[in-house]
């Protein structure tokens, strides 16, 4: 269980994380998605007590990370896979961590075997590929058999086999009742792996929803409309649950929340001429991009001329 309460973090004048609140529940894989620079890693460092917020608080399994007497048994983390001294072996690195908690050598060998690094266990990690670093990072996270896992981009740099391995692993850990919090900038990968999603953009939580609901929303039909009378059609289409945005040229609209038939009928009723009316299936990646771009525009203080919204945007 991870509880993030109203965290704000500034670096100089730049606000990296702005009043963020969310919680991560046990028994689920929770995907933490957002574009690079959205504040994912910053928040993860706060969860681990490595960085202190300007305001707000984080608790893990009921208390602040720094107050845990045996943190490796509570939270297993991988922040930057490559952040290991290149001159040390995988076993040397894990053993140094294990000693702090009196974890025996046999457990080190166990996690090394579990992630498939047995053959290179005594090689200097400076020679490792990114994929091997990821596996070592996961071994380190599993070392204390923790109830909560915090993993920053664990599938980064893995081959398809490795990605499948991570996916199976994360689901398995969640099935054992652990809290699994995983960041990624690949929406489609998270849609397969995660049960729940927290989407972050420019330091704000944009969505906190089940993957199922996110996919349903994202794959709802979008209708592309080309008309010489865009502004009148936008007014006519305005209703609850309908989103209209100008796409590309000034005469092209993207309508979400209505079917092509409904758009056509509304156009006819209002005597708006249509050149084109095309139903389009938005991919998850598109939905994610649109969502985070909206956050960027909101932050940038863009005016409504670029992006007209009709009705609620959940």
């Amino acid at each position, binding site marked *: 269980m991870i509880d993030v309460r109203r965290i704000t973090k500034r670096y100089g004048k730049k606000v990296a994380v702005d009043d963020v609140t969310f919680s991560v529940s046990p028994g689920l894989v929770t995907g933490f998605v957002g574009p690079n620079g959205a504040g994912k890693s910053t928040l993860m460092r706060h969860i681990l007590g490595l960085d202190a917020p300007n305001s707000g608080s984080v608790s893990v399994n009921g208390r602040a990370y720094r107050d845990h007497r045996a943190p490796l048994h509570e939270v297993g983390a991988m922040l930057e896979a490559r952040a290991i001294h290149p001159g040390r072996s995988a076993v040397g690195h894990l053993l140094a961590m294990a*000693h702090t908690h009196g974890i025996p050598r046999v457990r080190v060998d166990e996690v090394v075997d579990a992630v498939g690094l047995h053959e290179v266990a005594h090689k200097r990690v400076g020679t490792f590929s990114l994929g091997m670093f990821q596996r070592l990072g996961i071994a380190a996270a599993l070392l204390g058999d923790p109830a909560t896992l915090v993993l920053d981009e664990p599938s980064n740099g893995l081959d398809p086999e490795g990605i499948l391995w991570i996916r199976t692993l994360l689901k398995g850990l969640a099935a054992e009742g652990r809290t699994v919090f995983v960041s990624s900038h690949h929406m489609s990968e998270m849609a397969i792996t995660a049960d729940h999603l927290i989407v972050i953009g420019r330091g704000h939580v944009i969505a906190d929803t089940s993957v199922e609901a996110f996919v349903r929303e994202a794959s709802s039909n979008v209708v592309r409309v080309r008309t010489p009378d865009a502004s009148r059609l936008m007014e006519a289409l305005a209703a609850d649950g309908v989103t209209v945005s100008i796409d590309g040229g000034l005469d092209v609209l993207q309508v979400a929340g209505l079917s092509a038939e409904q758009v056509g009928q509304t156009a006819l009723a209002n005597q708006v001429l249509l050149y084109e009316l095309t139903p389009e299936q938005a991919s998850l990646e598109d939905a994610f991009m649109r969502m985070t771009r909206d956050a960027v525009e909101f932050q940038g203080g863009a005016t409504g001329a670029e992006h007209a919204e009709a009705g609620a945007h959940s």
Partner: protein
Amino acid sequence: MSTTSVPVFSSSHAGTGRVTQLGVLRSEWTKLWSLRSTRWSLLVAVIAMAGLGILISVAQMSHWSQMSARERARFNPVDVSLGGWNLAQLAIGVLGVLVISGEYSTGSIRSTFAAVPRRLPVLWGKAAVFAVVTFALMLPSAFVSFFASQAILTDHHVQTSLTAPHVARAVIGAALFLTAVGLFSLALGALVRNTAGGIAAFAGLMFVLPGLDALLPASWGNAINPYLPLSAGSAIMAIRPDSSSLSPWAGFAVFCGYTVVLGALAAYLLIRRDT
């Protein structure tokens, strides 16, 4: 690398142990010895401390006949035999910075602090392990150099013995000074958190600062000089009383005082700074 099956991750082997200072000491011990660069630096320090004095002794004896009466009068068998500390302090000073700055440059400090979120046990652990290792290596090295050098100096009967006044203090003092140098540089490394910066700070405080004396009026320079880190710390190895420097133990205490101040500042910032 071809593990696609999901192994059993719950384990009875992981235990439920808490973070203890003893555990952190073992961890730091493992970290120190698991790096090739550490072993090399320590080897250089041992060779310098144990071997250089012997070389200097051999060289001095070989041209003893050409030395002037004044040079012979100033000849100090203890200084000659312990001359290796000059080089050893560089190896130990650099390693002291690296012990902590290496964790920041590689990012492994985050794994370290995630395992020990109170952080201070890590600083104490590093300091204790490095101090014990340095002293345990430098003390025998100093004795080896001392005894071997005295044996060589018998050529011209200018040797001394461990039981002569101040000699034992100077030999043990060499190991004590080098240990304090290690802690001094470790504290600098913890403050600066950067290898190049830490080494620059170490070199600046130890070797550049004395040269800046020249910028001050002579009377000021003479007053300040004994209190500079290098002259204060190395006073513990002095045999002949010198009015321009502090007494051996007072000088060493001043150097230890600097180390404690730097260490306290490093500890204060260690808890407060983001990583």
